[in-house]
């Protein structure tokens, strides 16, 4: 089973009705807006009413509408009718590979899981995950990707992608795989070889993000926690909420950094070779807690989950507590805002133009645990001297329409060296390409 299982139960039907009514009441309040960007975000006190705030933006088709992009850029769809596209990479010859899939097999443990699962599913696509890689090719360079073909199929919720020389690495939800890749290839030669199994029990957060070290010797895999905040028990959290460093030759692994609740995308900073990640933080302690973040990943560091957040702010929901772990927790580099659900990150380059040359693009899938939705856009975080510097700049917006309905939800972002940003949209099931046109 790849989908969230929802156990039909006599009680659950009754509960859905009652809870839906209750949630409408709970959503009547307002979220105070908080500035939560940068190294020192404002952190209010944790709060939670009888019901968590939930706002699920109802999906609506794009129609003739297009996302909004900055002046000097245009946007178009380069592939549609995909099966839940998540992450992309641009190959050396300009071809684009798209990982399509939807994983996780976390059972509902409480009546609450049945209800919340039902409600959250209303904000996502009904399409079944493709479990495949699709290749897109624009042979004549006119910006139209005329070839759309299945590169590999029968994968298991593939997500993270990385290319090192002629090794194409794919992080399935349960294993790291390798394909032999020759430039120009449009279909994989055969089934991939397994480098190593990845933690996949329950897979509450199933996405396995991936990046390769600059020299290609190591692969980094982000493994999300198996719960929001340990409500599936501590045993389920073995080998979770961490980044593994995997030897590409032997498949041997070790924890590289821990306490990262859900490291949904990884990338290597080109000048320094440093590993960076975007991480989704915990829910249900208020509209402005806890900020999702962008951070350089320090080897051996502990980033707090589950015992504390943003450094050493203790989360009272975790028992038993571990003061000694809290004491060792470090704060991440840059807050992106609470509940924005950052799912994509990539470093920019000079071809994106002066304003957007130095920094990272971040794809934000958008919130559910908030009255006023946030995220649902791609932002650019400017860098200076190799560190984030300044407020995020909206780069691709318009994913929600003026009536508050959702047209699309950005996931992976990849910079095309030709001067374009590739954005996967897993609600509309399309790939957007934002191209720099100059002045």
């Amino acid at each position: 089973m790849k989908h969230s299982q929802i156990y039909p139960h006599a009680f659950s039907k009754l509960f859905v009705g009652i809870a839906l009514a209750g949630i409408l009441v709970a959503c009547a309040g307002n979220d105070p807006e908080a500035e939560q960007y940068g190294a020192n975000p404002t952190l209010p006190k944790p709060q939670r009413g009888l019901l968590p705030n939930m706002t699920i933006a109802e999906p609506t088709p794009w129609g003739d509408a297009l996302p909004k992009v900055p002046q000097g850029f245009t946007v178009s769809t380069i592939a549609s009718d995909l099966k839940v596209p998540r992450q992309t990479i641009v190959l050396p010859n300009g071809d684009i590979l798209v990982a399509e899939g939807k994983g996780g097999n976390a059972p509902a443990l409480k009546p609450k899981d049945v209800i919340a699962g039902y409600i959250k599913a209303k904000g996502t696509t009904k399409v079944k995950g493709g479990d495949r890689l699709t290749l897109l090719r624009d042979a004549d360079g006119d910006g139209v990707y005329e070839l759309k073909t299945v590169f590999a199929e029968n994968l298991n919720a593939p997500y993270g992608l990385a290319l090192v020389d002629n090794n194409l690495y794919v992080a399935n939800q349960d294993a790291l795989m390798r394909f032999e890749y020759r430039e120009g290839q449009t279909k994989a030669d055969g089934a991939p070889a397994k480098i190593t199994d990845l933690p996949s029990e329950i897979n509450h957060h199933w996405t396995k993000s991936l990046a390769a070290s600059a020299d290609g010797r190591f692969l980094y895999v982000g493994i999300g926690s198996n719960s929001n905040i340990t409500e599936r028990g501590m045993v389920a959290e073995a080998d979770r909420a961490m980044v593994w460093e995997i030897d590409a030759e032997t498949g041997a692994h070790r924890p590289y950094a821990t306490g990262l609740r859900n490291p949904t995308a990884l990338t290597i900073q080109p000048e320094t070779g440093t590993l960076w990640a975007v991480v989704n933080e915990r829910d249900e302690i208020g509209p402005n807690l806890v900020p999702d973040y962008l951070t350089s990943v320090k080897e051996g560091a502990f980033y707090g989950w589950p015992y504390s957040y943003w450094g050493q702010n203790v989360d009272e929901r975790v028992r038993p507590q571990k003061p000694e772990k809290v004491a060792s927790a470090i704060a991440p580099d840059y807050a992106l805002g609470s509940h924005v659900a950052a799912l994509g990150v990539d470093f920019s380059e000079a071809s994106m133009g002066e304003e957007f040359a130095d920094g990272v693009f971040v794809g934000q899938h958008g919130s559910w645990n908030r009255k006023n939705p946030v995220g649902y856009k791609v932002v650019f975080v400017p860098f200076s001297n190799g560190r984030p510097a300044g407020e995020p700049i909206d780069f691709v917006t318009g994913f929600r329409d003026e009536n508050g309905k959702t047209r699309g939800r950005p996931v992976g972002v990849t910079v095309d060296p030709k001067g374009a940003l590739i954005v996967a949209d897993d609600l509309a099931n399309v790939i957007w390409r934002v191209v720099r046109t100059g002045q």
Partner: protein
Amino acid sequence: MTVGSGRTLHPIHGALLAGTIPLFLGGALSDYAYSVSYQIQWANFASWLIAGALVFGALALLCSIIHVIRSPHRGGLVIIYPLFLLATWILGFINSLVHAKDAWASMPTGFTLSIIVFLLACISTWIGFAKFGVGGAR
């Protein structure tokens, strides 16, 4: 016979009413087990037991309202019985929302509420059985 003039509780009404006691009690005991062991499965058990008690309680409440409507007397315990059941159910529902919080966030409020709701269920059942009897046994 001073109350109900022979209107006793239907056996199904009685079974539903009595069913709230072991279910709410199970919830309270599971809460206790969670609070001393930190084993999350106890919190899951508590959530479902309370959900089950609410289903039984809602049906018993419905029966009690029908009982009032069909009763020739509308005063005293005939009215107080469904009011106690209603109070039990409302507090039980609040308790189920508290139990829907993740991990230890449901504690210690959840345990306290579970005990109160269990006691309310006992009182409701006591009034129901003691005053009206079951299946014409009185």
